[in-house]
């Protein structure tokens, strides 16, 4: 194995060449086509390989079929398959219309053929034959699979009631007809426990409504329950609570990013990474600047390292506090705005219940609050690892900007203190009144499209009980004890039952993407707890190993498909496609299978309403087209595949800023609640553990396994990040992607040297929850004292043996401890570990 060289040798010709580098340390196997195990080159047919060797030729194809990428980066980029004899040969992406508005697939999308035609595709229905979780299955008929599922559903409903059924969080298939058939079926059977929040924005979705507005304060007409005016509730997925990147492009002179790297989370060509490239060019072009606050020199700032401000993960709120301190000390806050639009900045706007108790934000910052600590830059420096002078300069720079666009990704909130961090970051634009104005943002992630052109297969769930998604393992283990005030149950005072039946369609959150796999495994394998698990997928994921019945799903490119634009591009669109190839083996569409299950209950007609899957797609499209008025006809869209158009830039909370009396927020006061009485009430009434706190103002708290928690045994902070080779765990088995974007632990040379670790070494990473093995990337692109594991790698451990995860899945390291308010997956990015050469 070669090591990183300090410099690439500069010699004459051959020796100084990249070819020399490529050859270093490699034998003839370097160029081997077959790669040894067959699996790595399964899709390279001999004919095609010779084609590659024959210059000037193109693959022979006979048809074009449209489709889109359906995984959960949210991009929904466009596929244009070129097929031959009913088999996909290669892909072009969106090459229609204006080049700037093409939903170009990223490296993963361009590798979708490797997934479609992978030898590991599940092709037959199976039932478990070993112990649950062992991954031992045998083939069964579709009839047996459908009979078994129907029987288990009947048994579960008869024995425990519908609230013993849970549809697990899963996002491997975003499509108008992907996951909906299962939910439609279960709804017809009496319903199931709903998912609350999601693994992407768990803490933020729970906490932000207390600051920017909650649907709980709206009546059925969308009016504020006490103020009677149309009001806006918070959502992380709209263009109301955040500004679009196109707005920053048009009008901002400073962009401040907290834990936001569209180059890694929004990689498609009509996605935020492209929007952001244009933001940078426009902002720099008018003399403005980008600041990227992250613990890594992420790919969004690669090439532009001066934009990077390194910070210890999980300490963003401490940095915010110190900036706020400087602004307050220097008279730079917009007191007029704070008085008119906000509650709780200082004593002047504190609610009656909290007045005169030093509970305001200003008290907290200036050292007269509950902790009596002044949040100076010198206070924040050792916490954040950002020098005090740098903090002062940053405070000045933001305060001097005419139109600062302050934006957080979803990384900062995915910490154990995330409920406070996400609100704290929003304090920056709030304090200086730079909100709802041209070129500014609300502190939230860039806006998502306000327009969706088509709907999806209708689902109706008569049950309102809602479980925070990260709580599903607790709900399996002791659901009957879980209430609104001890477990965050929503839509009901408590759970009616333990979860006894899991429906898991196209998702890997049973284990891999959930957390604390070693603990989760123990709960899932106990068949007296969750009695039945049905999994639908296309390949054998770690979650699929826990199935009692495992069903092979047809992929979207193998059936009529439709989906809107993704949720992060600033355009609206829809893709409709016909099958590019036949699904392998006995794979079926989930719609058809669910119709057959419904039939066992005499509900087939209710399920289908007399329509085939393809009828539904057409009906949904035509309903959307009629409502929109500008879309192509059905025949036209089938021919052209994609329809899209740009949307106008959006300014978050613009209406509120323009006229707060007529356009209040859906907070109790109708204003931005820096101090939330509701949160104070929750803090007083919920059952919390001693180390848990819910704070009415956005404060810095270290959080579980956060700042200050490292020990001699676990001396490093550890966190996860989104990696280009996967969308979460989707694509995690594609060898061609692993080759170009390896699963590597990021570790600073200072930390590596102390441990004798060199680039390329296999290291052991041990946390209180488990151990992984992973290759080291020794790099100055990560702050010292913290290591990072790309999330989503496939768990690969002998669960009956040492449980050392050779796959390097970050959730082997995370500890299962839901956050205080959201009951969410904060531990996903809050870990402590030791690293050693394996």
């Amino acid at each position, binding site marked *: 194995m070669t090591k990183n060289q300090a410099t690439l040798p500069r010699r004459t010709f051959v020796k100084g060449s990249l070819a020399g580098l*490529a050859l270093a340390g490699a034998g003839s196997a370097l160029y081997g086509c077959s790669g040894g195990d067959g699996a790595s080159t399964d899709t390279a047919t001999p004919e095609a390989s010779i084609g590659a060797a024959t210059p000037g030729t193109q693959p022979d194809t006979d048809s074009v079929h449209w489709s889109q990428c359906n995984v959960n980066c949210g991009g929904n980029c466009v596929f244009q398959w070129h097929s031959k004899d009913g088999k996909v040969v290669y892909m072009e992406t969106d090459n229609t219309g204006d080049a700037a508005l093409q939903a170009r697939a990223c490296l993963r999308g361009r590798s979708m053929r490797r997934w479609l035609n992978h030898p590991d595709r599940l092709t037959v229905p199976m039932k478990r034959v070993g112990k649950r979780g062992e991954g031992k299955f045998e083939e069964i008929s579709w009839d047996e699979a459908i009979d078994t599922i129907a029987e288990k559903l009947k048994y579960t409903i008869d024995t425990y009631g519908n609230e013993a059924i849970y549809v697990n969080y899963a996002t491997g298939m975003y499509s108008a007809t992907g996951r909906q058939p299962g939910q439609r079926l279960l709804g017809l059977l009496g319903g199931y426990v709903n998912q609350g929040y999601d693994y992407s924005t768990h803490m933020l979705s729970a906490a932000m409504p207390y600051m920017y507005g909650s649907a709980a304060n709206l009546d059925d007409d969308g009016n504020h329950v006490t103020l009677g005016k149309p009001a806006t509730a918070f959502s992380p997925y709209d263009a109301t609570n955040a500004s679009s990147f196109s707005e920053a492009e048009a009008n901002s002179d400073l962009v401040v990013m907290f834990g936001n790297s569209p180059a890694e989370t929004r990689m498609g060509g009509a996605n935020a990474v492209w929007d952001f490239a244009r933001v940078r060019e426009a902002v720099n072009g008018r003399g403005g600047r980008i600041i990227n606050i992250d613990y890594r020199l992420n790919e969004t700032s690669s090439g532009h390292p001066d934009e990077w401000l390194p910070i210890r993960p999980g300490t963003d709120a401490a940095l915010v506090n110190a900036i706020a301190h400087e602004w307050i000390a220097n008279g730079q806050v917009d007191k007029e705005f704070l008085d008119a639009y906000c509650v709780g900045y200082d004593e002047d706007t504190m609610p009656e219940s909290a007045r005169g108790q030093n509970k305001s934000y200003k008290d907290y910052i200036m050292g007269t609050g509950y902790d009596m600590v002044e949040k100076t830059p010198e206070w924040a420096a050792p916490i954040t690892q950002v020098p005090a002078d740098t903090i002062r300069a940053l405070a000045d720079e933001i305060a001097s900007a005419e139109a600062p666009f302050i934006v957080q990704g979803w990384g900062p909130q995915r910490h154990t203190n995330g409920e406070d961090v996400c609100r704290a970051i929003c304090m920056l634009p709030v304090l200086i009144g730079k909100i709802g104005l041209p070129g500014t943002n609300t502190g939230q992630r860039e806006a998502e499209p306000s327009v969706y052109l088509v709907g999806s297969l209708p689902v109706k769930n008569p049950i309102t009980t809602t479980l925070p998604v990260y709580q599903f393992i607790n709900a399996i283990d002791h659901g009957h004890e879980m209430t609104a005030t001890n477990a965050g149950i929503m839509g009901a005072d408590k759970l009616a039952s333990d979860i006894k039946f899991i429906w898991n369609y196209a998702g890997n959150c049973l284990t891999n993407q959930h957390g604390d796999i070693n603990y989760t495994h123990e709960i899932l394998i106990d068949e007296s707890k969750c009695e039945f698990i049905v999994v639908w997928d296309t390949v054998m994921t770690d979650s699929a190993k826990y199935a009692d019945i495992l069903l092979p799903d047809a992929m979207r490119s193998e059936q009529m498909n439709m989906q809107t634009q993704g949720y992060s591009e600033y355009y609206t669109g829809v893709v409709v496609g016909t099958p590019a190839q036949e699904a392998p083996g006995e794979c079926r569409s989930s719609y058809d299978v669910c119709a057959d299950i419904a039939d066992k209950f005499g509900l087939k007609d209710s399920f289908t309403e007399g329509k085939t899957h393809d009828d539904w797609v057409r009906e949904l499209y035509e309903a959307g087209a009629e409502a929109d008025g500008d879309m192509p006809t059905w025949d036209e869209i089938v021919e052209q595949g994609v329809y899209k158009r740009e949307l106008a830039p959006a300014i978050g909370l613009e209406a509120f800023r323009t006229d707060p009396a007529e356009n209040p927020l859906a907070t109790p006061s109708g204003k931005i609640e820096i101090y939330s009485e509701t949160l104070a009430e929750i803090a007083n009434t919920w059952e919390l553990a001693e180390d848990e706190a819910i704070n009415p103002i956005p404060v810095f708290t270290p959080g579980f396994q956060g700042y200050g928690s490292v020990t001699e045994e676990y001396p490093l902070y550890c966190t996860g990040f989104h990696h280009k080779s996967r969308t979460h765990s989707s694509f995690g088995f594609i060898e061609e992607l692993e080759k170009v974007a390896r699963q590597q632990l990021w570790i600073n040379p200072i930390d590596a040297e102390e441990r004798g670790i060199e680039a390329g070494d296999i290291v052991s990473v041990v946390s209180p929850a488990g151990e992984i093995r992973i290759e080291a990337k020794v790099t100055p692109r990560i702050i010292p004292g913290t290591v990072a594991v790309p999330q989503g790698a496939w768990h690969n451990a002998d669960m009956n043996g040492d449980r050392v995860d050779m796959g390097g899945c970050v959730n082997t390291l995370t500890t299962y401890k839901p956050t205080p308010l959201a009951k969410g997956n904060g531990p996903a990015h809050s870990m402590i570990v030791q690293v050693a050469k394996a």
Partner: protein
Amino acid sequence: MTQYGFYFDSTRCTGCRTCEMACKDIKDLPASIAFRTVYDYEGGTFTVAEDGTCSTDAYAYHVSVSCNQCNEPACLAICPQEAISKDAETGIVTSDPAKCIGCGSCTTACPYGAPKVNEDLGKSVKCDACSARVAEGKNPICVDACPLRALEFGDIEELRAAHADGVAAIAPLPAADMTDPNLVILACPAAKEPDDETGFVANELEVEGSVD
């Protein structure tokens, strides 16, 4: 004659490898062979102060490179079979599989590592700038794949004129005087000169041989 070449905007490149994977898809290449390669080049260090705070001059950037259809192709010069030729109309450099014996001379001679030997075929294979697509008036697939619109293809003189601030090489590419490549690069703020000795190729394992 129109000499074709590539333009690469390193200010936009995020190192995503989409160009590489689009190429691998249409050319049906296995994990072990890439006609277009993305290099991660990085350097710099951290300084930790007494109070635990940090300062850094760390940098990182990416270079996407394929065959540069050079004016003085080292592969062509060294080929003992005269299998490699440069098209008189387009300047695109190709290898004739009927003549190639797979000796690998070209792979070692090319300072960009562009030609590869496909051991199964016993032939040298390389980027032909998707010449069949180009003949149809399309771009090479890598160019139309780039989510950042960081690649362009065309008459090299026109590309050089359109990007007057472009350079012919940045690290870790070799100096352009070796083979006179038909490549224009817009250097990002982090970019170093070809003879840079401060940084290193950070993804050697991703640009070398097969995964094992």
